[in-house]
């Protein structure tokens, strides 16, 4: 006989640990990426070349910088959720699963922050 209520026992476990928010954020970032992904694809085709000068001028423009930051944020979040699902589905060993999930979380946060910092540095820096 446990003193813990059935609800309290499942909260924080499996599907009770915020599945609805996971589902919702995956869709929200997906819808954002329809716009941001197409924007990124079109912008990349419009760049005359990929020299330092050209790419710097592109990221330096406030409009592209803001769109790029939104793109990187949406990609980072969407990828974080997607990789998490794949790891949870296919990694059977609990220890490995936790290790992969932790590594993935740290890598996603680290790379997303680093990419945003890079964009801001170019955007606020002196024009090349």
């Amino acid at each position, binding site marked *: 006989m446990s003193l813990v209520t059935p609800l309290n026992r499942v909260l924080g476990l499996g599907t009770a640990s915020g599945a609805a928010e996971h589902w919702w954020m995956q869709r929200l970032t997906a819808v954002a990426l329809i716009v941001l992904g197409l924007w990124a694809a079109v912008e990349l085709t419009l760049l005359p070349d990929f020299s330092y000068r050209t790419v710097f001028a592109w990221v330096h423009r406030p409009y592209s910088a803001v769109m790029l930051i939104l793109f990187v944020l949406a990609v980072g979040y969407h990828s974080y959720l997607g990789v998490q699902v794949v790891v949870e589905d296919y990694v059977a060993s609990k220890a490995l699963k936790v290790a992969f999930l932790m590594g993935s979380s740290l890598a996603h946060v680290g790379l997303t922050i*680093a990419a945003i910092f890079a964009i801001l540095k170019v955007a606020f820096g002196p024009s090349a």
Partner: protein
Amino acid sequence: MQGVQRPLSPHLQVYRWQITMWLSSLHRITGLLLSAGAIALAVWLLALAGGPQSYAAVQPLFAAPWFKLPLIGWTFCFFLHFANGVRHLAWDVGAGFEPKQISASGWTVIIVATLATAAFSWLAIV
């Protein structure tokens, strides 16, 4: 590192492969490959932020002829995941669940992704 050994019910091997299964697996595989591609994107942006020298340091890799292959590959992953993602969003609102519609939307995804990959590769990569 083995989990608990449990008996398994017949799985993929007992079904005839059809487009829904292909796209379902490809959605996950392309998603994972795009996550790897996002690392390349971060490296590219960081190299840019580092200045002309650090940009020149990664340029030989990004501009190498052989690197066009992964770039075109990521382009295909992007458009397939994109188009199939829109298909998923349609299902989320309950649209297009009839077997014929599912098959038709599946082939549409493959055709759109192929054409978009060809166009983007022609304009931005090759």
